[in-house]
């Protein structure tokens, strides 16, 4: 045990004395470890950005889309759909679900009435699709009880209305049953130049939409956010149950989210691993170079240490440990640097999106970085350690 601590003390002493060498080793390996950690974190962020972007459209894993298309000329009544969907949701105890209807709603803007694309959804829909408002709020269950329908609209909608969300704007929905709707929240346009668009609670839509409008909306669909491991079983069960529940329809149940994300995830991982390995190898090469030069410079010292009783094994281990200790220091510096970078650079914004669930600091990446740094240190120390052991003591003392 004393021998181990002795070798550590010796290695630390060497590094303290050869500060320049440590610094050079630090630059190479610390940058590599920092790169590994940062790239891994960036990869995590990229995966998260990609996942959240996909989830905005397709829902979180696993989101099932349930549709029942009429097979004849007549569409079953909306109330049939509502009853069947409620039954399915209750039977399988689905915690988050949303009916979805699409409609063209006649909003009376100051410039005149405009048929505006409106999505009628449940309050849970925002959670299922990671939907966020940038002003005001999303719907609550209580909004369904209000006589004035609540709306969440895009920026283009507000611009057309000529008001701000802070002004608590309202707008009249025209048609056969005109009603004053309240805008409770706003969200960014999905693309530049997008026209006005709005979200409304499906309950409000069913209450205020004219029968013609409801027919034009088509068959409502149902989205279910279910555990990934039960998704396949539920897909079959829901299809079977619903086929009998709404006669005269063809039921389709499918995954909306992207189950193939795992493959993309794997590819990203390998890419990151490859880049990091190259970075680390470059850092390691610099370390080998410096260590070799230093050992040649220290031949006499190695001879003197042999006269102190250092066995060849001890000399080997000490020289090896110098590299390892140096890379541990470099690894700690690299990981610290990566932490500072990750806390100060908004990677998600740079990637063009803001994530809801910001990935935490990748501790596993830091551990991987440290293990890789130590391994590179050991490999880099191996060659100089072998050179040191081959030094002839007598020649070394006379050196």
């Amino acid at each position, binding site marked *: 045990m004393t021998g181990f601590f002795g070798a550590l003390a010796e290695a630390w002493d060497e590094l303290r*004395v050869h500060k320049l060498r440590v610094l050079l080793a630090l630059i190479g390996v610390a940058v590599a470890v920092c790169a590994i950690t940062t790239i891994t974190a960036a990869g995590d962020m990229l995966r998260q950005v990609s996942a959240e972007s996909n989830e905005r459209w397709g829902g979180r894993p696993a989101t099932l889309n349930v549709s029942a298309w009429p097979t004849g000329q007549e569409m079953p009544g909306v109330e049939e759909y509502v009853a069947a969907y409620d039954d399915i949701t209750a039977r399988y105890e689905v915690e988050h679900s949303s009916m979805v209807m699409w409609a063209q709603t006649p909003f009376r803007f100051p410039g005149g009435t405009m048929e505006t694309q409106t999505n009628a959804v449940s309050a849970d829909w925002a959670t299922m699709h990671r939907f966020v408002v940038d002003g005001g709020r999303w719907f609550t269950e209580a909004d369904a009880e209000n006589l004035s329908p609540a709306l969440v609209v895009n920026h283009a909608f507000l611009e057309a209305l000529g008001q701000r969300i802070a002004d608590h704007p309202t707008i009249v929905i025209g048609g056969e049953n005109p009603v004053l709707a309240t805008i409770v929240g706003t969200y960014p346009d999905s693309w530049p130049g997008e026209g006005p668009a709005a979200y409304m609670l499906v309950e409000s839509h069913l209450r205020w939409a004219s029968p013609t409008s409801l027919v034009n909306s088509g068959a409502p669909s149902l989205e279910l956010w279910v555990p990934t491991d039960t998704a396949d079983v539920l897909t079959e069960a829901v299809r079977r149950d619903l086929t009998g529940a709404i006669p005269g329809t063809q039921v389709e149940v499918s995954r909306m989210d992207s189950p193939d994300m795992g493959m993309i995830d794997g590819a990203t991982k390998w890419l990151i691993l490859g880049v990091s390995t190259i970075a680390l190898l470059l850092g390691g090469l610099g370390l080998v170079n410096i260590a070799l030069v230093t050992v040649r410079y220290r031949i006499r010292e190695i001879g003197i240490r042999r*006269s102190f009783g250092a066995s060849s094994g*001890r000399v080997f281990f000490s020289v090896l440990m110098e590299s390892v200790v140096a890379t541990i220091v470099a690894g700690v510096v690299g990981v610290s640097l990566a932490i500072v970078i990750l806390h100060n650079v908004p990677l998600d914004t740079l990637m063009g999106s803001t994530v809801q669930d910001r990935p935490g600091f990748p501790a596993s990446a830091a551990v991987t970085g440290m293990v890789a740094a130590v391994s590179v240190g050991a490999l880099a120390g191996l060659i100089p350690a072998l050179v040191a052991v081959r030094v002839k003591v007598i020649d070394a003392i006379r050196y």
Partner: protein
Amino acid sequence: MSLLELHGVTRSVRLPDDRILQILRGIDLTVDAGEHVSIVGRSGTGKSTLLNILGLLDTPTAGEFLLDGVPIGRLSGRVRARRRGADFGFVFQQFNLLQARTALENVAAPLLYAQGKQFWNRKRLAAEMLERVGLGDRLDTMPEKLSGGEQQRVAIARSLVRGPRVILADEPTGALDVDTGGEVMDLLDTIAQENGSALIAITHDLAVASRAKRHFRLAEGVLAPIAIGARSAGSLDGLGTTMEHVPDGEDHQAEHVAVPLGTVASAAAATGSTGAHGPGAGPGSTLDDLFGDSVVAS
């Protein structure tokens, strides 16, 4: 049982042209605990090789080397290294201090290879040893800031810090002036005696050699006992020393061959040594009379 025993030890090396160079031939030597032995000889006669063998840094080509009665050939490299660290202290001509380390760190360095308390208390032990050699106020001084004499005192402290049973001194005063060399040898003698350590000094400085109880001459790889007697005591300047050749095994019936030291001084000066011993020397003898006449290894 003697501490060190060499019986018929030879050391040879193969040269690049495949010739065999005999450096040491049939060396017989015994050294007891606490004994002071000196070995004189010209440069290149194999003195350092002999010292390296004695210090377990090198192994004989043939013959037997017993340490505490145990043939060292039976010891593994690891055990030899451990015994070297624990039982031997080295003092080199060029001090061989570790650069960029303070005096304290230099003296503590051998304790990195010690076990138990010696390892954990290395800084304290090193400071105490530096105190003993009179450098208690230079603990944090770098070697390049120390004088030659101070550097050698640090080297002596370093060689003694693990309490070795044998101190091997290779030209310990070779890089020092006469007075400083004398002071350093006084210190080495004193501390070695206090520690009960055997002292084997290799030198071509007769003043250094004369301090030993037994003296040997190494010439052409052959070790032979000699007697060195002081004609006058006192300072090194006034020392008149003769070297008497003693046939093997007849230490006490020495064949006296008077050798004036003035010739040693001039020859030593020519080889870079400062081992001059002043005006007591007489004319008529050459260095070859003293050290043998051929160089067998370089």
